[in-house]
C-alpha cells in the first residue's frame, strides 16, 4: 500500500509534465488550440484522480527518491516524492483547482486565437507540474527548483496577454519582487546545508528531533527561508506584486494567485515548522508581519473599485492570516486555512471571472443588479463570500476560528486584536462587492453599448491582440445581444463543484473537526469558548455594515469613507508602498546599477578587453604553428617528446 501511494503521487506529478512536453514539442498540436487544451485537460484529470487516490491512501510518511547529483559523501541532491498527509492534501488541492481552472478556461478563453490557447495550456501544464513538484519535494533542492519553475510559469501566465503593456509590466514586477525573496530562500537553504550537511527534509527533521542541530546562527537561516515565503506569499512589504498580477487572465488568478502558488510560502513554513520551532524570535516576526499584512490588505480591499483587485487584496490579507497562525506556533491551523481558502477563493475568482466575462469590465460601478441576469453566478459568489467571511457551515468558518484561537493561545494579544478587526473588514469588503455587483440598480443596460468601446483592461486585452478577426470586447456582452447572463456550462460546472466542495467541507469540519485534512493532530488548538460567538458576531457586523451602506443606503458610503480621514487617503494611495518601492527602484537601485554599469564598462570591460585581445592574438599566434606541412608536424612530435623526457628526468 505504501509503495502504491508514492507511485500514485508520482503519476499525478508526471502527467502534467507529459502534457507540457507534448504541447511544447509537438508544435502543430499546440497551434491547433482546442485539441491542445483537451490533451492538457486529460492529463490534469488523470492527475486529479491519482492525487485523490494518493490522498485517500496516505497514512504515514513514505518516500520514493532517487539520487540525482551523486557526491563522495552521499548524494548532494535527490529527486522524488515525499508523501504524507500534508503533501497529499496540498497535492489534491493543486490537482483539483488546476483541473477545474483548465476546464473553466475552455469557456473563458473561447475567443482566443488557437495558437494563443495552445500556449496558454502549455503554460498551465508547466505550472501544474512545477507546483506538484514543489508540494511533493523531499528536499530543499527540488523544492527550490520547483519554486523557481512556479515563479517562471506565473510570470508567463501573468504576461499571457503580453501585447498589453500593463500585463507585461505586472509580469516583470511579480517576477522581480518574488525573486527578491527567492534570493533569501536560496541563501537560507545553502546556509542550512553548511550548518547541517543535508538538504533532505526527513533527515533534517530527524536531526532536529534528536536535538543534534546547533541553535547558534539558526535564526538567520530560518529568517532567510522565511524571506522566500514573504515574496511568494505576498507578505508585507513584498505584497505589492500580487494586485498587479491580476492583469493575467482571471482563471490564472484563481489558480496561481489565490489557491496554489501564493500559498507555497505558507506551505513551506508549515512543512518546516519543526525547524522554525527552534527559533521563536523568527516566529514572532512571522506573527507580527502576518497580522500587519492581513490588516493592511483588508483596508486596501475596502477601497478598490476593481472586483479582481478586491479579491487580490483579500488573498493577501488571508495569507497574512495563515502566516500569523504559523507564527503563533501552530502551523497546522494555518495550513488548514490554506486548504479551505484555496477552495473558496478559487470559487470567488472564477465567479468574478464569470461576471467580468459577462459584463466586459472589472469595474464594480459598471455592475449592479446582476442577480436578475446571472442568478446562478450570484448564488455561487455569495456562497464564496460567506465562506470568506467565516459564517458557520461555510468553507472558511472553522479554519478561521482555528487561526484566531491559535494566535490567542500563543499569547499574541495585539495581533489577535488586529486579526479580529480584519475579520470584520473582510466581511465588510466582501459584501460590499456582493451588494454593489449583484444587487441595487442595474448599471448595465446603458453600459452594454459602452462596453464595446470600454477601456477596461480586460476588454482591451482582448481587443488589442486579436486584430479584425475577433470580438471587440469580451465575449457575449458586446459581441452578442448585449445582456449579460450566466456563463456556459463548461464554466458553470467548475463553479458549482467548488461551491459544493467548499460548503461540504465547511459543514463537515464544523461538525467533526479538521482531522479529515490534517490527520490526527497531537494537540488541538483549544480556543476559548467566547471566541466562536465573538468571531461570528464580528463577521455579522461587517456584513450588516455593508448591507446598511450599500444596499439600504442608510449610511452614506462617501461619508463613511471620508470619516476615515487620512486613513482613506493612505489606503487610496496603497499606503504609498508601491511608490516607495518605485522610488527605491529608480533612485537607489538604478543609481547603483548605473554606478556598477560604469565600473563594468570602463574598468572590468577594459581589463577583459585586454585579456580577450590577448586570447585572440594568442590563438592566431598558435595557429601559425599549423603550417600544413607534415615535416613540421613530425618536428612538433619530436620536440614534444624531448620536452616530455626532460620534464620527467627533471621531475625525478
Amino acid at each position, binding site marked *: 500500500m505504501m509503495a502504491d501511494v508514492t507511485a500514485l503521487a508520482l503519476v499525478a506529478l508526471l502527467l502534467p509534465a507529459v502534457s507540457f512536453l507534448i504541447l511544447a514539442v509537438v508544435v502543430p498540436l499546440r497551434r491547433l488550440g482546442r485539441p491542445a487544451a483537451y490533451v492538457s485537460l486529460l492529463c490534469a484529470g488523470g492527475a486529479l484522480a491519482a492525487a485523490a487516490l494518493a490522498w485517500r491512501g496516505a497514512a504515514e510518511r513514505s518516500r520514493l527518491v532517487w539520487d540525482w547529483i551523486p557526491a563522495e559523501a552521499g548524494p548532494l541532491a535527490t529527486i522524488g516524492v515525499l508523501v504524507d498527509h500534508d503533501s497529499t492534501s496540498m497535492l489534491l488541492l493543486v490537482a483539483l483547482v488546476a483541473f477545474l481552472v483548465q476546464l473553466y478556461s475552455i469557456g473563458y478563453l473561447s475567443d482566443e486565437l488557437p495558437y494563443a490557447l495552445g500556449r496558454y495550456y502549455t503554460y498551465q501544464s508547466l505550472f501544474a507540474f512545477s507546483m506538484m513538484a514543489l508540494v511533493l519535494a523531499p528536499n530543499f533542492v527540488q523544492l527550490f527548483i520547483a519554486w523557481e519553475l512556479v515563479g517562471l510559469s506565473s510570470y508567463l501566465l501573468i504576461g499571457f496577454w503580453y501585447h498589453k503593456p500593463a500585463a507585461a509590466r505586472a509580469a516583470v514586477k511579480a517576477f522581480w519582487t518574488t525573486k527578491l525573496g527567492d534570493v533569501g530562500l536560496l541563501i537560507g537553504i545553502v546556509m542550512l546545508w553548511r550548518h547541517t550537511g543535508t538538504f533532505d527534509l526527513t533527515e533534517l527533521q530527524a536531526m532536529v528531533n534528536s536535538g543534534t542541530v546547533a541553535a547558534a546562527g539558526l535564526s538567520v537561516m530560518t529568517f532567510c527561508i522565511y524571506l522566500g515565503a514573504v515574496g511568494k506569499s505576498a507578505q508585507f512589504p513584498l505584497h505589492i506584486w500580487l494586485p498587479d498580477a491580476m492583469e493575467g487572465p482571471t482563471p490564472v488568478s484563481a489558480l496561481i494567485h489565490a489557491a496554489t502558488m501564493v500559498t507555497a510560502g505558507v506551505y513551506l513554513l508549515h512543512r518546516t515548522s519543526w525547524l522554525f520551532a527552534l527559533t521563536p524570535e523568527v516566529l514572532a516576526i512571522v506573527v507580527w508581519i502576518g497580522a500587519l499584512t492581513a490588516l493592511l490588505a483588508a483596508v486596501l480591499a475596502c477601497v478598490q473599485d476593481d472586483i479582481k483587485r478586491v479579491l487580490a487584496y483579500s488573498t493577501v490579507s488571508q495569507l497574512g492570516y495563515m502566516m500569523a497562525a504559523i507564527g503563533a506556533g501552530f502551523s497546522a491551523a494555518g495550513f488548514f486555512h490554506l486548504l479551505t481558502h484555496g477552495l473558496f477563493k478559487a470559487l470567488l475568482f472564477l465567479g468574478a471571472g464569470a461576471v467580468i466575462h459577462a459584463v466586459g469590465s472589472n469595474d464594480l460601478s459598471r455592475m449592479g443588479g446582476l442577480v436578475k441576469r446571472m442568478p446562478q453566478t450570484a448564488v455561487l459568489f455569495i456562497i464564496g463570500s460567506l465562506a470568506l467571511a467565516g459564517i458557520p457551515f461555510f468553507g472558511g468558518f472553522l479554519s478561521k476560528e482555528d487561526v484566531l484561537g491559535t494566535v490567542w493561545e500563543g499569547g499574541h494579544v495585539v495581533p489577535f486584536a488586529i486579526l479580529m478587526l480584519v475579520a470584520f473588514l473582510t466581511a465588510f469588503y466582501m459584501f460590499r462587492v456582493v451588494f454593489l455587483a449583484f444587487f441595487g440598480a442595474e448599471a448595465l443596460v446603458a453600459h452594454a453599448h459602452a462596453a464595446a468601446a470600454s477601456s477596461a483592461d480586460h476588454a482591451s486585452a482582448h481587443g488589442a491582440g486579436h486584430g479584425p478577426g475577433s470580438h471587440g470586447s469580451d465575449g457575449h456582452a458586446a459581441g452578442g445581444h448585449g445582456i449579460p447572463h450566466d456563463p456556459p456550462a463548461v464554466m458553470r460546472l467548475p463553479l458549482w463543484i467548488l461551491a459544493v466542495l467548499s460548503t461540504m467541507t465547511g459543514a463537515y469540519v464544523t461538525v467533526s473537526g479538521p482531522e479529515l485534512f490534517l490527520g490526527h493532530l497531537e494537540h488541538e488548538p483549544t480556543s476559548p469558548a467566547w471566541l466562536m460567538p465573538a468571531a461570528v458576531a464580528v463577521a455579522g457586523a461587517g456584513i450588516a455594515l455593508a448591507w446598511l451602506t450599500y444596499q439600504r443606503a442608510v449610511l452614506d458610503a462617501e461619508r463613511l469613507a471620508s470619516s476615515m480621514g487620512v486613513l482613506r487617503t493612505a489606503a487610496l494611495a496603497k499606503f504609498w508602498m508601491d511608490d516607495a518601492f518605485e522610488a527605491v527602484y529608480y533612485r537607489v537601485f538604478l543609481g547603483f546599477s548605473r554606478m556598477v554599469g560604469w565600473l563594468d564598462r570602463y574598468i572590468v570591460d577594459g581589463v577583459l578587453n585586454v585579456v580577450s585581445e590577448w586570447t585572440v592574438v594568442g590563438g592566431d599566434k598558435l595557429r601559425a604553428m599549423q603550417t600544413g606541412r607534415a615535416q613540421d608536424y613530425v618536428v612538433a612530435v619530436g620536440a614534444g*617528446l624531448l620536452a616530455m623526457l626532460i620534464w620527467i628526468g627533471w621531475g625525478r
Partner: protein
Amino acid sequence: MTGTLATTLAPEIGLFVLAVVVLLIGVIQRGDQKRVVGWITGIGLLGVLGSTLRLVEGGSVGDGMFVNDGLAIFAKQLLLGAGVISILGSLTLGHASFSRRSAEYHFALLASLLGMMALVSARDLLLFFVAFELMSIPLYVLTGFLKRDEATSEAALKFFLVGTVSAAFIVYGISFIYGVTGSTAIDTIPRALAEGQPLTWLGMGLMLVGLAFKIAAFPFHMWVPDVYEAATTPFVAWLAVAPKAAGFVAIIRLYVAGSSASDTWLPVIVALAGVTTVAGNLMAIPQRNIKRLLAYSGVAHIGYMLIGLAALSDSGVAMVLFYLVAYLFGNMGAFMVVEAVARSERSEGIDAYAGLAQRSPLLALAMLIFLLSLGGIPFVAGFWAKLYLFLAAAEKGLYGLVFLGAVLTVVALYYYLLVARRMYIDAPVCSDRVRVPGLLGAAIATCAAGVVGIGVYPAPWVDLVKRVASALF
C-alpha cells in the same frame, strides 16, 4: 574467474565475423552496395553491443594477455555505441565512391574497431602494439577514403606519416621495457618502475608520446584539424571519440591505475593537460570552418580529460570516463548536425549556420544543446562532466589546473556561442528548410537524448563509472 575462450572473446569474434561478411559482400556484390552493407554493419554492431552485456568481469584469455575487467567492458560498450551512431550517420552518405566502395569503408571501420576492442583489454605489450596498429592503420585508409579528392589524400598522407612516427616511438619504448624486465607483460612494469631503472622511464616516456598522439594532446595534435576537415563527417564524428577513448583507457592502464599510479607521472600529465587545454581553446577561436573549430575544441576537451587524469585517483578516472560519455554524445551530435547542414548547404563554414533557427528550429535547437554541453552549461551532460572532473582534480589539490580549466571554459563558450549567435540572431540567407535524412535525424536525436538525459539525471552514469574506476585501485 576465467571464462572459456568463446564467452570471453564473444564480441571480438562477432566483430571479426561481421567484418569478413562485409568484405565478402563487397567482393560478390557489384554496383550500389551502400545500403545493404551499411544496414548489416549497423545491425551487426548492435548485436555485438548486446553481446558485451553478457561479458563476465574478470574473464581472461591467453595467460592473462587479454582481460575483460570492468574498464575494458565499459570501454567496449562506449566504442561500439559510438560505432552505431556513426553508421547511422553514414548510411545516407551520397558520394558516388561511397556507394561503390561501401564494403571497403565498413570493413576498415570494423577492423579499426576490433583493434580498439583488443587494445582496451590488452595486458601484454605485444598484443598492445598489434592492437594499436590494427586500430590505427584502417584510420589512415578511412581518412583517405575519397581518394579522388586532393585535400583528403593529403590529409591522409600526413596522418599516416606522423602516425607512423608515433607508432615507432611506441615500439621503441616497448623494446626498452622488454630489455629491462625481460617480459612483455604489463603487470611487470610497476615493479620495474619502482626499481628506478632509468631505461624503464625512457620506455614509458616514449610510449606516452605515441598515446598522446592518438588522443591528440598538444603538441601531438597537428593531424587533427587537417584530418577532420578533409574526411567524411560521420567518420570524423567517430574518429573524434573512439580512438581517443581507447587511447585514454590505455593511458589509464599504463600510467594511472593501481600501483603504477606513481607521482612521477604527475608533472608530465599536469603539463600535458595545461598546454593542451590552453592551446586547444585558443586555436579554436580564429576558426571559420566548423569542422576545424570542433577539431580544436576537441583538443581542448582532451586537455580537460587530462586534468581529471592528473588527479591520479579513482574519482579522477571515474570522471574521465563520465566525461568520455558526455563527450561522445555532445561531440558526435555536433558533427552529425554539421553533416546535415553541409549536405544541404554544400558548405562547412560557420557562415552556413546564419539564421538556422528560423529555417530549421529543431536542428538549430539540437546544435545548441550539443554546443552547450560541450561548453559545460547546466543542465546538459557536459556540465556535470566538467563539474565532477574539476571536483576530482580539486580533491587532489590541483587548484591551478582547475582554475585554468575553469577560465578556459569561458573562452570555449565564446567560440561555441559564436555559432549559436549565427544560428539564432543572424538573419538567414535563404529561408528554405534544411532537409535532414531520417537516419541522420535519428543519429542526432539519439545524441540529443543522451546529452539531455545525462544532463537531467546523471546519477546512474556516475554510479557506473565510479564502480568501474574503483576496481582499478
